[in-house]
């Protein structure tokens, strides 16, 4: 166990995919030409007034329920006052003392096992506009995003590692995708994250001084930022220094960070209830109605995968973290006798390259057929992965069975077909045979390799190994 542990709290901002913005009738869409989805309300024209979009409340409640939060029967919108060019009203409408969702928790699965991360609360708020820095033109303001509804999910300081933070964010993304309240895309900024991190001696109950890193916009950067900041703080403590409570900017390109604002310069946001908006009262019946609309969530699916298909928790978690993948896997698993092999293919070769958006580019039927070929040992795993990759990139609906036939890729499972090749390989590798007999098991790989090469990779590797061992055993010492 290492001497120090990280204590991490996250604030995750998620843009809600409501049709309209939070306080006006402007379209809530990504990628429109700058300053086209705007009106007097979202650009804070003098005299304009906000009117809360009910769909935002419904979506936020849905997200809250998915995160096991309590829905507050009474909540309130407040003004957070500060000056910045992306904020035309000079205040953000958000929630402070009385947020919409209270408490909650999310279970995360990492290679180290399962842990429960508690939430402090979830509140709703309006996004600000966007500053665009253009060479030669200076800084321009695009207010399309001003008034886009957000939820902010605030955790307790329960996260202990970058891997846990990553798993937490992936779970949040899964939950907002499953419930359909957001696309959860970090690459588009529809999910962003502030990291609060302090370091303490492992096992200590006391919290250290924390720093905050704001607006990190990819899973990868969150991991990097945490690793970087943890290391930085540990180095300071090790050299007898003290951590300054401050906001830091993480530079994801150079993997460095620098102070942005010290505690002394901390803003006083002068929160107060927004007099333009009435308090939000939620009836239990409304919560019940929304609860009924929530589909099966990842944790439920995960448990089902473990039980039904005998997958590990970790693998089941990976599959369920993306609703597209989960749906895809389930369909494929139903069509094959070897669901576990299908899961392995997805985890090894689909997940790493999967874009945050778009369809999965093959059919569950194709994957099921491929898993069957593997399971029935009609092809070996090398061939399996090759075909899987091909199916992912090929635009046509490649039929793995037909492809194997056409390209003579069937695994050679026939002993007599391998016999001669194996004899030759053994004869060519006397040295390896000697080594193997001396107990150097790995030496056999050279002989297997030669057989594989001679069969263009089609020999059944297990059968080949078994036969080689039998042959070597027959050779006198």
């Amino acid at each position, binding site marked *: 166990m290492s001497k120090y542990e990280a204590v991490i709290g996250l604030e995750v901002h998620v843009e809600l995919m409501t049709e309209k913005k939070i306080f006006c009738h402007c379209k809530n869409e990504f990628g429109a030409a700058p300053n086209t989805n705007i009106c007097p309300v979202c650009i804070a024209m003098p005299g*304009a007034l906000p009117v809360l979009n009910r769909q935002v409340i419904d979506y936020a409640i849905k997200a809250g329920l998915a995160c096991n939060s309590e829905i507050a029967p009474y909540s309130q919108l407040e003004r957070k006052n500060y000056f910045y060019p992306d904020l035309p009203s000079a205040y953000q409408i958000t929630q402070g003392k009385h947020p919409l969702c209270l408490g909650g928790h999310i279970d995360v699965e990492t290679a180290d096992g399962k842990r429960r991360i508690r939430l402090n609360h979830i509140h709703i708020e309006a996004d600000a506009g966007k500053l665009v820095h253009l060479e030669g033109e200076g800084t321009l303001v695009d207010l399309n995003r001003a008034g886009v509804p957000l939820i902010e999910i605030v955790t307790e300081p329960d996260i202990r590692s970058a891997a846990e933070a990553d798993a937490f964010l992936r779970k949040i993304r899964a939950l907002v995708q499953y419930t359909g309240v957001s696309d959860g895309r970090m690459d588009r900024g529809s999910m962003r994250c502030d990291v609060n991190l302090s370091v303490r001696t492992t096992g200590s109950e006391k919290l250290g001084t924390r720093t905050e890193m704001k607006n990190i916009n990819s899973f990868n950067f969150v991991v990097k930022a945490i690793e970087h900041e943890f290391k930085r703080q540990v180095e300071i403590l090790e050299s007898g220094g003290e951590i300054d409570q401050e906001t830091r900017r993480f530079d994801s390109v150079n993997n460095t960070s620098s102070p942005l604002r010290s505690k002394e310069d901390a803003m006083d946001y002068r929160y107060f209830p927004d007099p333009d908006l009435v308090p939000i009262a939620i009836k239990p019946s409304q919560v019940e109605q929304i609860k009924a609309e929530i589909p099966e969530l990842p944790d439920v699916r995960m448990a089902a995968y473990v039980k039904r298909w005998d997958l590990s928790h970790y693998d089941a978690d990976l599959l369920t973290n993306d609703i597209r993948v989960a749906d895809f896997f389930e369909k494929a698993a139903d069509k094959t006798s070897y669901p576990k092999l299908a899961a392995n293919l997805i985890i090894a070769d689909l997940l790493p390259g999967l874009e945050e958006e778009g369809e999965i580019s093959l059919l569950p039927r194709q994957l099921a057929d491929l898993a069957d070929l593997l399971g029935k040992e009609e092809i070996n795993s090398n061939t399996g992965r090759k075909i899987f990759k091909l199916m992912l990139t090929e635009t046509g609906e490649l039929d793995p069975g037909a492809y194997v036939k056409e390209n003579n890729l069937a695994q050679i499972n026939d002993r007599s077909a391998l016999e001669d090749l194996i004899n030759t390989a053994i004869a060519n590798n006397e040295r390896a045979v000697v080594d193997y007999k001396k107990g150097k098991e790995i030496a056999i790989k050279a002989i297997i390799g030669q057989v594989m090469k001679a069969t263009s990779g089609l020999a059944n590797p297990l059968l080949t190994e078994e036969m080689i061992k039998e042959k070597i055993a027959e050779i006198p010492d």
Partner: protein
Amino acid sequence: MDINKMDIKQLAQGLRAKDFTAVELCGHFLSEIEAKEPEINALITVTSKVALDEASSCDKALAEGQELPILAGIPFALKDNILTKGILTSGGSKTLANFIPPYDATVRKKLKEQKTVLLGKTNLDEFAMGSTTESSFYGPTKNPLDTSRAPGGSSGGSAAAVAAGEAPFALGSDTGGSICQPAAYCGIVGMRPSYSLVSRYGVIAMTSSMDQVGPLTRTVQDNALVLQAIAGHDPQDSVSHNHPLPDFSARLGRGVEGLKIGLPLDHLETKVRPEIKNAILKVVANLESQGAKIVTLRTGNLEAALPAYYLLTSAEVSSNLGRFDGIHYGYRSKNYETLEDIYYNSRSEGLGKEAKRRIMLGTFALSSSFYDAFYVKAQKVRTYIAREMAKALEQADLILAPVTADIAPKLGTTKSPVERYKESFSVVLAPLAGLPALSLPSGYQVEGMPIGLQLIGSSFSEPLLYQAGEAVMALNSEEKGS
């Protein structure tokens, strides 16, 4: 036929009888404006072209025999914190001296639909903060009854325009007496409606929790007609009252017999000039002789209303005026290198003294260390005042109270801000409690200046206030010359 003496109903009849056209009527008021404005300065912008266009459109509709609302063709003036599409809306501030709104306030839209005729935009204290119009970037308005005196504020331009005969009616806005007080100083009728009765959409926010738009008119009847036209639910204002509107004129002509009128004696004993107290007592005696029942009100201590009002208004102002930072809205200083320079210098150069004072007070009151001691405490006082006012209104149908401690002050009187704030003691009660207040002349004068009084009722009791107000005005004409 003297147009200046005609009320809205008579003007509407004149239009329909073709005694004059809307264009002629408009022309009459535009020439009044031209003659009087150089001295009075009630208007920041005169919208002659818009007025004549709107008037001829009304004439056309009349000629086609269309049934038009009663306000059709009636000219009016609008306080310059109410947004008018394509027409300067300055809020009386340097910072918005070139702000041409791209949309209309709901009240302007409603009056447009009624085919009224916009004569111009009236002067006001900067962002409606003040009680004399002296904090306007466009200079003070003069009281038409005595041009050495202030017309009151912040809706001083609206009150003066009506009192000077420049417009048959005007809209003002009231946050803590900004309609009632200038109406009293100028001897006209002003209604601060119940909070949420009239849409705030398109009105430059000062204190969002108290701002209300209301009519300034020469008669109670006119006032009820105008309120009828501007009140009503607006889905664009979240706090807007969503109930069917009453007929605000329904109770006119019923007199005061049987009405219980409450008198807050504390106020009269200690705070107002003796002549004002006497005028009010005379009105009360007359109302009693007409069958009203006079009740001396027992309320708790209302002294904290004034500081609570100024804390809350400053707090909200500090947030509402944030947007005038020189980036998206408001004057931008030429003197800057960094973003911070733009903020500091634009606000320093663009905003006036009173605005800055309230921004600083409000920023302080909302700061995390003082929030509970000031903002939260003030909100508690507000709740207490609202309860006390409700209790008072259980004892009586309405409250009759002074509007001001004195008559309209001389322009240029130097007073400390606190002294000025203190003058509002009587007009902040209704706004703090969200109640309607009707300000009207008592019929008595001192130093040749009118003495006003106000009637405060329960929320949405405007028809009752008009009923009693009309009776007070009827006494006025009987008492003329006293």
